Every structure is written in structure tokens, then in C-alpha cells.
């Protein structure tokens, strides 16, 4: 009874409403009612803005409330919310795509070859031990302030995550399944295509979901450190002007971007892994 869909939805909406109400009016109310020492600083709109201000900033940054109209506003501001989101999304996507593709390829090659795995093992461990963030300034130095450095940063983060999972997944392929495929006439390449890759796919996907978040983190960090456009740049600019509500707008947009990317990966996953019980289409 208590966990029926409607009840759960009710509580979810109630919690959301409570958060919005406290966020919007909590600071004023507590200042009016409580002694000064007890007024919670975390609710101070100077630091965390408040929903109404965030909404106004959203309308302004998104060019919805510009006197000159939507089109001129978009043109006059080259890091408006739309363009910034698009740039960040685009860089995240390419970084994720290149990172995942190269991670899968490298994982398969090293996973299938004991020789290469042993030769490259120490290098992989050494490179993976470098905190990726430490490399961002270097990446920007090499690739410049443009999009390429953001894609490269995302690639760096995604590659290793996907690589390690693919490698382990390739190692975990059932030897008897490989033997069975060979006995049914499969060549080495056919075994890779029809047994190793489908079998390792579950492991690969287990890494793709975090990888897509990591790609977004990589791009944002890149934009923090040096960029011309993007949501990260928007936050840094807002910080310089101590404008909490604009930062909040960027944060919320990132949240939506993250959710959209996760949904995309998730639906691809449940299609490709539909043979696994947890992805069984519910009737």
C-alpha cells in the first residue's frame, strides 16, 4: 500500500515543495523569528541565492526576458545559456565518445593478449595513478583555450575508466564459451566479434554510466581552468561577480545535461543487454 506509485510520487513532490519553500523564504523567516546567532547561514541568499532569483537569472541568461528580443540577445552575448550548454554538451559528448571508443579498443586488445597486457601493465598503472585534474593545465597549454582541450580532458578521464572495465570484462569471458565457439568453426576474429565483445559488454556498460558523468566533470573542470565558452566558464564569471543565482542556473542546467546523458546511455544499455535479467523488458 504505502509504496504504491501515487504515494511515492506524492512524497517526492512534497519533499521538493518543502525544499523550495525553505530555500525561498527560510532565511527571512528565521531572521524574523530567531536570535541572530541562530539564523542559518547556509540559507543566506547571498551564498545560495533563492528560487525566485534563480528563475529570474535563468530568464535573463536564457534570453527569455530581453528587451531587444530573443534573437538579438542570443547574438549579443556569445556565452549565453544556450550556447554555453550546447558547447559543454558537445565537448562532453565527443570526449565521452572518443574516450569510450579508445578505452574499449585498448581494453579488448590488452585483454586478449597476455603478452601486451604484461608489457603495458605497469605503464597503465602509472598513468592511472596521476590525478587527472593535475593534467588539465597541461592539456590546455597543449590544445589551447578552445573546445579541443575540453574534449581532451574528458577523454583522459573516460579512457581509463572504460579501459579497465573492458580489460576485466575481456579477461572474465568464459573460456568454455570460447572453446565452444572455436569448435563450432569460429576463427580468432569471429570469437572476438561474437563471444568476447558481447560477453564483455556488460562490464563495458557498467563503466559507461559513470564515464558519462566523468566526461561532464572533465569538461567543466577544463572550462574552470581556461575557456572561452561553456557552462563552467559561466560559473567562473558568476563567481567573479559574486552572483550566486547565475551559478545556480548553470548548476541546474548541468544537472539536466547529466540526467539526459545518463538516460541516453541507460537506454542503449538496456537494449544491448536485454538478454540479462535486470534489463528484461517489463511486461
Amino acid at each position, binding site marked *: 500500500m504505502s509504496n504504491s506509485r501515487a504515494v511515492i510520487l506524492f512524497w517526492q513532490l512534497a519533499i521538493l515543495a518543502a525544499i523550495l519553500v525553505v530555500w525561498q523564504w527560510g532565511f527571512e523567516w528565521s531572521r524574523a523569528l530567531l536570535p541572530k546567532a541562530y539564523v542559518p547561514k547556509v540559507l543566506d541568499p547571498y551564498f545560495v541565492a533563492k528560487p525566485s532569483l534563480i528563475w529570474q537569472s535563468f530568464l535573463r541568461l536564457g534570453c527569455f526576458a530581453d528587451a531587444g528580443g530573443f534573437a538579438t540577445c542570443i547574438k549579443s552575448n556569445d556565452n549565453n545559456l544556450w550556447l554555453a550548454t550546447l558547447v559543454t554538451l558537445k565537448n562532453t559528448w565527443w570526449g565521452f565518445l572518443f574516450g569510450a571508443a579508445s578505452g574499449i579498443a585498448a581494453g579488448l586488445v590488452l585483454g586478449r593478449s597476455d603478452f601486451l597486457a604484461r608489457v603495458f601493465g605497469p605503464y597503465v598503472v602509472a598513468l592511472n595513478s596521476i590525478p587527472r585534474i593535475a593534467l588539465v593545465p597541461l592539456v590546455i597549454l597543449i590544445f589551447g583555450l578552445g573546445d579541443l582541450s575540453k574534449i581532451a580532458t574528458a577523454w583522459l578521464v573516460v579512457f581509463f575508466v572504460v579501459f579497465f572495465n573492458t580489460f576485466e570484462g575481456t579477461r572474465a569471458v*568464459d573460456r568454455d*564459451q570460447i572453446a565452444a565457439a572455436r*569448435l*563450432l*568453426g569460429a576463427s580468432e576474429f569471429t570469437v572476438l566479434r561474437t563471444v568476447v565483445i*558481447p560477453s564483455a*559488454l556488460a562490464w563495458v556498460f557498467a563503466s559507461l554510466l559513470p564515464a558519462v558523468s566523468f566526461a561532464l566533470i572533465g569538461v567543466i573542470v577544463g572550462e574552470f581552468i581556461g575557456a572561452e565558452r561553456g557552462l563552467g566558464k559561466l560559473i567562473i564569471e558568476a563567481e567573479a561577480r559574486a552572483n550566486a543565482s547565475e551559478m545556480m542556473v548553470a548548476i541546474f542546467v548541468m544537472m539536466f545535461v547529466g540526467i539526459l546523458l545518463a538516460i541516453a546511455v541507460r537506454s542503449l544499455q538496456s537494449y544491448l543487454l536485454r*538478454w540479462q535479467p535486470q534489463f528484461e523488458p517489463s511486461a
Partner: protein
Amino acid sequence: MIAAPGQGLAIAREEDRTSAARTRIAVQRLAKRFNASGREFVAVDDVSFEVKQGEFVALLGPSGCGKSTILNMVAGLLPRSGGRILIDQDTVETGKVNPRVGYVFQRDTLFPWRTVEQNIGYGLEIAGLPKTERTRRVASAVEKAGLSGFGQSFPRMLSGGMRQRVALMRTLILEPEILLMDEPFGALDTHTKLEMHKTLLEIWERERQTVLFVTHDLGEALTLASRIILLSARPGRLKEDFDVAIPRPRDPVSVRETAEFGRLYSHIWHSLGEEFRRTRAD
């Protein structure tokens, strides 16, 4: 044993055919030694036997006697330490697959990401058979295995017996002339096992592949095989060789009521019993 005249004739004909038939598998002085933590131990020692065209030979022995090891060497899955194996006069090379040989595993080796139809059609698919022809042959195999209505199911939705039927069909659809089977029904319950015996008997009595069937189940060996090779406990050596002159077509249940079944059962049971005792004494 007093056999009906017709049955006696059937036996005579079967034996005639096998004695005149050519040798498909020849195992000569086969040996296998393993190195386990610096200590060498002998798994198979000086085993020789032959399997002729159309024979159904059961390789019977206590657990750990090396019968699966022998089978895997015959299949070329495992390198041998000594001796020779010939299939149709050609020496078996490790790692090289002979397209005339089919192999059925004890363990479930179905591809879980493929449906029943895709599993059964795997060999045809990678051989590049046109899709229409493939679909036709897969459909007929699905029906032959009693899996109608499950063609689109994934293996995890099937019972153990059904999965093993799929595995059997995945191998048989390639029409191998020689069939190597490594305790294929070892993991199934008694009832399912009997059903599988029925299916296999029907197929084999129609198609007469040359079969080498590894098992530790005496009843299973007597039900299916036309010959039983008994191996000793470790190290695996050839102990005895029996012809199973039970007439065909056999039924997995009523075959147990024949006099020949009873006679061979108690005889081999004694022989096998000695080996089990030796295993336990180790």
C-alpha cells in the same frame, strides 16, 4: 538371454557393420601428465583404443580417471604428453578444429546474449550460410529438439534440460560425422536425463554418427552405447572393453528391463566398484 529371432538378426547386422567399418578415431599409447606445484602426476597412462564408423562408444570410469582429459585431447583442446591420436588417419593437432567433429560440453556453454534460435544457428551463421536456408534448418532443429515456441527465448529463461537440448542442437545442426560428448547430461536430474537419452537415441539411431561419450554413469552408458570402454582409477588406463548387444531401437526406460542390461550392469559394476575403492584408498 533368449532373444526374439528378429532382434538377434538386428544385433548380428549391427556387429557386422561395425567390424567391417573403417576406423574413425584411433587413440594410440596416449599419455597425459600434469605438473601441479612442482609435482608431476599422471592423469592418463598408455591408453589405446579405436572407434569405428557408426559406433557409439562410452568412455566409462570413476571421477578423476582422466576420461574427460582423453576426450579433450581427441578434440584437440588439450595438448598430449605422449602417444598419438588419429581422426580419419590424420593426426589431431592441438588448437586446430576438425569440421567433421562436433563437441558437446558438460557445462552450459550457450551464449546467453543469443536467443535459442541464434544459439542453434551460430555455426551456420559464422559459416556464412544464407539466411533463408539457415532459418529453415534452425526451425527444423528447434522442432526436433522439442523446443517449439522457445525459439525467441534467451537461455536464462530455459530449464537445464532445455538448455542442454539447445547445446546439443547447436552442435548437431552442423552435421558432424564424429560426435564427442563430455558428460553432457551430468548436471541434469534423473527425469530430464532420461528424456535427453530418448532424444539422443532417436537422433543417433536415425543418423548413426560416430560417438565417443564420456560418462561416469553406468546406466547411461548401457542405455546409449554400443560399446563401453572401462577405464581404471587414476592414472587412467584401459581396463576392459565391452560390447553392448542390446537391440535397437532402444527405449531409455524399457532397456533397463532387458537381460543383457542386467548382466552387463552387474559385471561392470563389480569392475567399476574395484576402481571406486581404489580412488577412495588414495
